[in-house]
């Protein structure tokens, strides 16, 4: 098995003291920021990008791998103990997990989440190791038209399917696509929309956009509507997994993995859909339906596993096609490019040792997280005692660091602030932020590949549907666009109980403190 020996080689590289140290650092940082409100893994990686200027690529990516997985773990801890899911993908965990904690089974909820994450993360990472070389072989045959189709599918998914308001998702995507246009056209070397500023001729830095939208925008938004007052912390009480808990957990773990990995690996992926699906599946399959809505362990085990499996799945298109399908993946892609490394079909051959070390350290980091997280849940919660004024002032401090260190140009900070204000306005008026980042990164991918495809075919539009791959992907994109509309038309205004449940989950964060604000016209 080629993949196995490559992976063992990766372990040999990852198990050096320095790399282990950075894996630990990444895992701790990732968990810490996963726990903290207002910071997600995407922002953490963006804020820490400056370290990539000095670290070796391998070491830097080992750390990012730790942050990436750690952020998922941290999110589950706060979901369960505080009922405050930091990311949309941990909403489902909060739903049943917090109820378990309330009824004195917090320790069991944390344990099933942690072990489920570990099991799913490990299986999914191994699947990544197995699948990546195969996908790369297929990806060599992937034409520019196929890439274009993939980018279109990602646009449709991120703008219309994931958000609450498709039009606003589209608006956000448009802003991102515009930002992606600024700079020099790759194919003809012409400057576009640089308004005469030479610094813009290389385009707008993804780091500036990501830090601006996430860190600065989030801080401004929180400042504008600061919530005061603490939330209730549940004790991690009760026993860890009993035999009965384990018996009820292992199947959801595996089912969550089976749902999370492939859906995460789709270019339209992300972790939200698999966690919702996993929750719905466990609700249907459980032998204890009466417990759902009162703290069912299956409802924690499945979504948590799906969440982590999807996180590993997202790495498949990122590493093999160079296509980021989540905001975090987009930042990691920027980190690769900062080293002059272009993820894509040739990555596995040109940077083989880097990729395998990365995969090995994902497995190592996953194990570290299991060891760290079970006993330390209480410590993480202590982090939340940082007063909000200091927390958000600190976020801005790191935003300044991350952005200024790229070019040492104060102009970048001004641009950061402008984008931060844009991010604030977007949040304030309900425009989702992620489509803008995805548009910025995938816009140029879509454009160059469309133009390459047409140039290679001498202008024959038929090239866009020339391969089965592009036909299927474009059909999926059309389906994703039309299906919600059709479903709404067929079903009318009546929502099913499942939908209500899922909708409740979506709004769960609001109910943490105050009643849902405005319910009209979702």
């Amino acid at each position, binding site marked *: 098995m080629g993949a196995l020996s490559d992976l063992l080689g990766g372990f040999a590289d990852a198990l050096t003291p320095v790399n282990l140290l950075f894996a630990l650092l990444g895992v701790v940082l990732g968990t810490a920021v996963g726990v903290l*409100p207002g910071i997600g893994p995407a922002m953490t990686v963006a804020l820490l990008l400056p370290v990539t200027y000095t670290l070796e690529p391998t070491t830097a990516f080992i750390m990012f791998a730790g942050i990436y997985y750690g952020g998922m773990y941290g999110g589950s801890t706060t979901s369960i103990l505080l009922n405050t899911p930091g990311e949309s993908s941990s909403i489902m965990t909060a739903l049943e997990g917090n109820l378990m904690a309330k009824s004195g089974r917090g320790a069991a909820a944390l344990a099933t989440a942690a072990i489920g994450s570990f099991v799913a993360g490990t299986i999914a990472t191994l699947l990544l190791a197995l699948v990546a070389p195969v996908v790369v072989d297929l990806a060599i045959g992937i034409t520019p038209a196929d890439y274009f189709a993939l980018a279109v599918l990602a646009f449709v998914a991120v703008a219309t399917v994931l958000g609450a308001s498709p039009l606003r998702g589209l608006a956000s995507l448009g802003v991102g696509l515009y930002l992606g246009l600024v700079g020099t056209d790759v194919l003809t070397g012409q400057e576009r929309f640089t308004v005469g500023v030479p610094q813009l001729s290389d385009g707008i830095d993804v780091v500036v956009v990501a830090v601006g939208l996430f860190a600065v925008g989030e801080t401004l938004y929180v400042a504008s509507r600061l919530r005061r*007052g*603490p*939330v*209730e*912390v549940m004790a991690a009480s009760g026993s860890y997994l009993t035999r009965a808990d384990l018996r009820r957990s292992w199947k959801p773990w595996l089912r969550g993995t089976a749902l999370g990995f492939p859906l995460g690996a789709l270019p339209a992926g992300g972790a939200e859909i698999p966690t919702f699906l996993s929750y719905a599946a466990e609700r249907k399959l459980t032998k204890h339906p009466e417990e759902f809505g009162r703290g069912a362990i299956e409802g924690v085990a499945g979504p948590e596993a799906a969440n982590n499996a999807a996180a590993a799945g997202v790495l498949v298109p990122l590493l093999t096609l160079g296509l980021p399908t989540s905001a975090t993946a987009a930042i990691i892609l920027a980190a690769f490019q900062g080293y002059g490394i272009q993820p894509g079909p040739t990555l596995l051959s040109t940077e083989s040792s880097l990729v395998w070390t990365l995969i090995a350290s994902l497995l190592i980091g996953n194990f570290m997280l299991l060891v760290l997280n079970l006993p330390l849940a209480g410590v993480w919660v202590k982090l939340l*005692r940082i*007063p909000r004024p200091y927390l958000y002032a600190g976020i801005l401090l790191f935003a300044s660091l991350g952005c200024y260190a790229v070019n040492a140009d104060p102009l970048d900070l001004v641009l950061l602030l402008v984008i931060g204000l844009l991010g604030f306005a977007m949040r304030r008026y309900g425009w989702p932020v992620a489509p803008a980042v995805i548009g910025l990164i995938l816009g140029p991918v879509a454009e160059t590949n469309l133009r390459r495809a047409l140039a290679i075919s001498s202008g024959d539009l038929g090239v866009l549907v020339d391969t089965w791959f592009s036909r299927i992907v474009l059909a999926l994109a059309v389906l994703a666009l039309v299906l919600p509309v059709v479903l709404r038309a067929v079903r009318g205004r009546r929502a099913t109980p499942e939908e209500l449940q899922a909708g409740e989950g979506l709004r769960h964060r609001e109910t943490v403190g105050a009643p849902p604000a405005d319910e009209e016209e979702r």
Partner: protein
Amino acid sequence: MSRQPVVVVGHVPTPRGRAALEHGVEEAHRRGARLVVVNSSRGDALVDEEYLQGDPLRRLQDELTVSGLPFELRRPIGRDVAEELADAVSETGADLLVIGLRRRSAVGKLLMGSAAQRILLTVECPILTVKGPPRPT
């Protein structure tokens, strides 16, 4: 008819808060007073373990009910503990305020300031300060 006396207690779920509460209950019984328990939070952090919520809150209420005193539990979220207590005292026209003291080194006091000190300076009624767990009565 004369007004019923009022005893205000500044309470936090710590040994010193415990001590303040028990002394407050004792004093209220002695004076036949109404008890006002204030548990406040600055509310500037997502988690404040000194702010009573959930089960501990229920337990406190049960405990006060059992004591047989007329009581009121206030849980304001404000900028400053001292201000909240001073507000409670002036509003109820309290006859006594009971607070718990934290042991601190000189350096610690210099750095952190002292809520107790500000309370002593701002509050307009007699104050009983309690340190550590109370003697068994």
